[in-house]
């Protein structure tokens, strides 16, 4: 079973390149069971969107 720290690695990676099928599946499985990581994933996405504020 993948633990949270490793899951955050995949969440981060997902912002930078498409995940492989296996990576996607193990992340999805973990997220389905872990509410803290679901929040973390939302936060990473928000950080990504926040970076675009300089686009005029």
């Amino acid at each position: 079973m993948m633990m949270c720290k490793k899951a955050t690695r995949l969440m981060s990676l997902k912002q930078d390149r498409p995940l492989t099928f296996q990576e996607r599946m193990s992340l999805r499985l973990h997220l389905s069971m872990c509410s803290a990581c679901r929040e973390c994933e939302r936060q990473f996405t928000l950080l990504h969107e926040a970076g675009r504020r300089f686009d005029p």
Partner: protein
Amino acid sequence: MKEQEDRLQRLTAVRPRLFSFAFMHLRDRSQAEDAVQEAMMSAIEKHESFAGRSSYETWVFGILKYKILDAMRAQKRDGRWQPLENEDDDDAIDRQFQQNGRWQQSARPSSWGEPEAAFETEHFWQTFDACMIALPDNAARVFSLRELMGLSTGDICRELGIKENNCWVILHRARLHLRACIEKGWLKGATP
């Protein structure tokens, strides 16, 4: 003439944003200031080459990006960069997790609400900026290139001369640092 006047005004208006953009990448006030000045100078000199396909501000930001990349290369040449390899030990990150890889109770992420609502809050941006400044230099540079400048990790690696895998490790750490810092500062009101 009227048009030039108008553009000069727009340049002046966008200058603070140009500066904070440059500062986040270069982390040095005077170098950021220089990059902005150079970008503004070339925008004025080359104003005829502005084709109007994008907004004027976007065009100026585009010029600034090249100036920032030049300045970063110079920083690297001058040895102002810590080696990027040795970032495996990161206590601040390790403290967010237990030995077994689960979140520490005190570090468990909580909800930040809707992004749009956060983005409308001045306090969110103040916290974001403070947390960017609190990031370790390398993490901040790579994160800025990726998320503010929008470069791919492949481009960043070529630019910085590091392996892509290294880039992903740095970005992972940067994001974990940032999220913890923002959560503390923004939701819980602590100063980063």
